[in-house]
């Protein structure tokens, strides 16, 4: 049944919202990441101390969220490029959005156990 809106609350809107939220989150991490990496130029010991803060359980979970955001932004970005470039993809943009979610799940299933093992395993 047609509920009177083509965009709001549907795949097109949610992919846009998620693309924007993940993009903003990744951008602010990038600012911090360039600065923390820059300490490598100051002193080896200082860099190791800064990096130790990335190896705590809480930051380890933060890295999992960051990677989840990056992987979504990457695959959804590919979907946007395809939709812009081909008529076929713009006709099937909904199916492609579910394809993005499937690919995202596959990559996260491959990444998460290994990363969590690094963070929480001995």
């Amino acid at each position: 049944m047609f509920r009177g809106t083509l965009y709001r609350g549907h795949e097109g809107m949610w992919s846009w919202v998620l693309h924007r939220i993940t993009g903003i989150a990744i951008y602010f991490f990038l600012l911090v990441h360039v600065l923390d990496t820059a300490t490598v130029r100051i002193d080896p010991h200082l860099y190791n101390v800064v990096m130790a803060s990335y190896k705590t359980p809480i930051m380890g979970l933060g890295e999992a969220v960051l990677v989840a955001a990056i992987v979504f932004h990457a695959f959804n970005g590919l979907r946007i490029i395809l939709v812009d470039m081909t008529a076929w993809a713009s006709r099937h943009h909904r199916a492609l959005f579910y394809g993005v979610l499937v690919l995202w799940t596959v990559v996260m299933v491959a990444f998460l156990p290994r990363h969590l093992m690094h963070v929480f395993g001995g």
Partner: protein
Amino acid sequence: MKLFRLDRLAWIFMRVSGFILIGLIFTHLTVNLMQDGGVKAIDFAFVAGKLADPFWQWFDVTLLWLALIHGSNGMRVVIDDYVYRPGVKRGLFVALGVSTAMLIVLGTLVIFTLDPCPVGSPAELLPSFCSAS
């Protein structure tokens, strides 16, 4: 239609850089978070060892420039969408441009001027090739 309007160039750049960034960042994450000890293995010796190799220098500097320009252009669109007062919008654009330029210069200098074997640092903190005679 003007072929080289700034907005049009930015639109093309987001797609081209985004495509390249997928390969660069997935490689970056695999090498730094998946290989060996993952995040726990990242220390000065690891980073200095990587950046002693021209391949990783050019890899990282490409990643730095593309990611910062892609990210700051995205933030430019976000600011343009949500900030209505012209003065505030202008101020945020300037802050965004200045911070992006500073981080690009800083990161580029770090990548190309890092000494992997700084004198006076304990050998156990440095890459193994530093102590090879």
